[in-house]
């Protein structure tokens, strides 16, 4: 209701002389029930606070950028240094529905940044072909929720191209980007985190950044990587996450999990948005329970850094994994079972691996699965 009110108010303020805007405002003003914004009708704030990383000093001058701007910066660097690189997908020409490609078409030309017809299987298939022909292909899927028409091309073709051809052909030059994860109001089809589906597919790499600095470095690594990569971008962080991001290109290695804070009592593992939740959890646990948490950002889901997680669990003895996406068959089950197998866990002290979150705010935006 409050959202509707805001929409009409916006309409009323525009320069167009369209009746609905002003009529709507009038109607709302006249209605007594709409005048107060009660607690239950207010849109909730995000369930976490983004925690920026310190300014990196080793990559040169930095600039304040949010997540989508850090993506644009990575793409800009790529188009500048690699003349074969092309970016394509639905609506990328005007800048993209999340503004990740703003300015790139004007700067690099319409043959390098272009719209495709509305067809995900075509976008990925086309991208595979570009990559096979030796050019760098950066394909955008508008929402990770819509990646499924391209599942056949990704799993049966992209992932297997090199293996099945005896290394004569490959599509290592392909990177697929998609907005990912819950955003609050996204509901079933603008909130999904499908990394678990792709984790089951050798030949692919799946990467999820937690922040702008991470995003730019990891995306540039994906683009440079000689294997097809899927790069999921937490959409809730596009505007909310702001950091000082290096302007020049830099890479952050794939398949290397990052220990964000060291601890001794329990290992917390997450990726993407949930890192910020777990960081809060870690400080709450320290403060209220006296528990020392080691927080690990997995970053690369496939191939994942088994060694770093196992090394941490050997130290702490306890493992908690938290992710969006359904529990059953979720990626936490892979991490949990692999750690147990690797560490040959004694039966008397099995690890607890849970897939839930400890939240301070009202939870309003999980996928309902």
């Amino acid at each position: 209701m409050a959202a509707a009110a805001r929409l009409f108010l916006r309409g009323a303020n525009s320069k167009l002389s369209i009746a609905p805007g002003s009529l709507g405002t009038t109607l709302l003003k006249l209605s007594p029930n709409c005048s107060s914004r009660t607690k239950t009708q207010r849109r909730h704030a995000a369930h976490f606070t983004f925690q920026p990383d310190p300014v990196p000093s080793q990559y040169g001058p930095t600039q304040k950028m949010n997540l989508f701007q850090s993506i644009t910066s990575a793409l800009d660097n790529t188009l500048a240094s690699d003349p074969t690189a092309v970016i394509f997908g639905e609506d990328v020409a005007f800048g993209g529905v999340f503004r990740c490609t703003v300015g790139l078409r004007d700067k690099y030309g319409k043959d390098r940044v272009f719209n495709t017809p509305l067809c995900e299987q075509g976008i990925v298939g086309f991208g595979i072909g570009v990559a096979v022909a030796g050019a760098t292909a950066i394909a955008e899927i508008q929402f990770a929720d819509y990646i499924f028409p391209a599942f056949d091309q990704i799993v049966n073709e992209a992932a297997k191209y090199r293996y099945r051809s005896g290394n004569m052909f490959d599509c290592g030059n392909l990177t697929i980007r998609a907005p990912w994860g819950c955003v609050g109001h996204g509901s079933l089809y603008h909130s999904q985190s499908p990394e678990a589906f792709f984790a089951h597919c050798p030949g692919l790499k799946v990467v999820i950044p937690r922040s702008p600095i991470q995003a730019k470095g990891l995306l540039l690594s994906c683009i440079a990587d000689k294997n097809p990569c899927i790069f999921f971008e937490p959409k809730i962080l596009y505007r909310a996450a702001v950091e000082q991001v290096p302007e020049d290109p830099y890479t952050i290695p794939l398949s290397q999990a990052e220990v964000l804070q060291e601890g001794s009592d329990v290992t917390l593992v997450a990726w993407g948005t949930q890192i910020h939740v777990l960081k809060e959890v870690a400080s709450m646990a320290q403060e209220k329970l006296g528990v020392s948490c080691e927080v690990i950002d997995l970053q690369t889901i496939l191939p994942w850094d088994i060694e770093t997680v196992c090394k941490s669990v050997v130290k702490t003895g306890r493992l908690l994994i938290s992710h969006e996406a359904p529990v059953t068959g979720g990626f936490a089950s892979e991490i949990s079972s692999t750690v147990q197998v690797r560490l040959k866990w004694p039966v008397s002290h099995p690890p607890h691996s849970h897939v839930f979150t400890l939240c301070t705010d009202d939870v309003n935006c999980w996928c309902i699965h």
Partner: protein
Amino acid sequence: MAAVSSMSKMYGLCFRAVRQTAGLKAYRLLQRRGFRVTVLQLQQTFDSSLEKPQFPGASAEFVDQLEFIQPNVISGIPVYRVMDRQGNIINPSQDPQLSKETVLNFYQKMTMLNTMDRILYESQRQGRISFYMTNYGEEGTHIGSAAALDPNDLVFGQYREAGVLMYRGFPLDHFMAQCYANADDLGKGRQMPVHYGSKDLNFVTISSPLATQIPQAAGAAYAVKRENTNRAVICYFGEGAASEGDAHAGFNFSATLECPLIFFCRNNGYAISTPTNEQYRGDGIAARGPGYGMLSIRVDGNDVFAVYNATKEARRRAVAENQPFLIEAMTYRIGHHSTSDDSSAYRSVDEVNYWDKQDHPISRLRHYMTARGWWSEDDERSWRKQSRKTVMEAFERAERRLKPNPELLFTDVYQEMIPSLNKQRESLWRHVQQYKENYPLDLYEK
């Protein structure tokens, strides 16, 4: 009358396409490329005082009679041919007048393919290889189109285009090695038989999922266009695969993104057991081309010169004009779908015999050659004997060869070896070492 003229305008695109395909003259069709506009150019002015539709989605006229467009399947797009079924040239201007050497090469490649097919099909029956697919009846589509291309043009195939590879010079040993999955297989023994590929010959490795190659070909053509090296891309598929969503995607992308690409559909009447009247209701595949804004033609796939002419012209224009072309080559699948199929379950022996005896690409070309005194009965006998001997020798060599090193199970999944795969690899070797009496390691290369 307004209805008639507007109907003919609606048909306009189709009629023009038909006229275009009927003749091989290079006159430029005034392309109604209404959708090829940049974002800037789309700022057209809308004028409601004009009695013409202003919709951005289509440029057309108004009509005030309610009438549905007929799909026109009864008299569909005509079939272009150069020779009649007896191998006589019908219209001399269409004879590509290839040299004797070239035509003999066409014939020898088609018959060599046929011989290889017979031997490898039989070898599957005898349990020597696991699986095979023959190309019987479609040799003309392979050789005619391959001959019209440049050797550097990139080929994306489906699985029934071995003749294209053969034409380009893929050695018999490599065909056999792939079918036997032996240590000489360029694909390292990982795929089922007939999933050929060759980097040197620009033939992208075949994969089993159907039609996946179609949007890939569009992407490759786009990249090739940007390279500016006058290369084209050709994409082969059957009329069954054309029903896949990937086909629609590939056609639409190649047209909107202006790719130098030839779509070559082998319409051979069957997708395993499914006949064409259960595959589509429209006028085949060629009729879909205009729906995408694509120049299209239907050709007699059993007439190697018709296939050659159409492909040659399509290639020339695709590269010169950066647009895709659709060629639907009508033919007939004389053999079974594969060694896992027995087509007598769904079609009569008489039907198959008609095509084998009365309308075969190899026979028609032979008649053309014998009419010119380029080929005699003696030539035929000695060629058959020689080609059979060559194939058998390659076959025997392939059979004796060891299988690939089992290490190759684990490489090329990624460009680099990753720790978790390495661990699995080590685990395999530990197991095999421990139980080596159960594993025939001497059949595999070390």
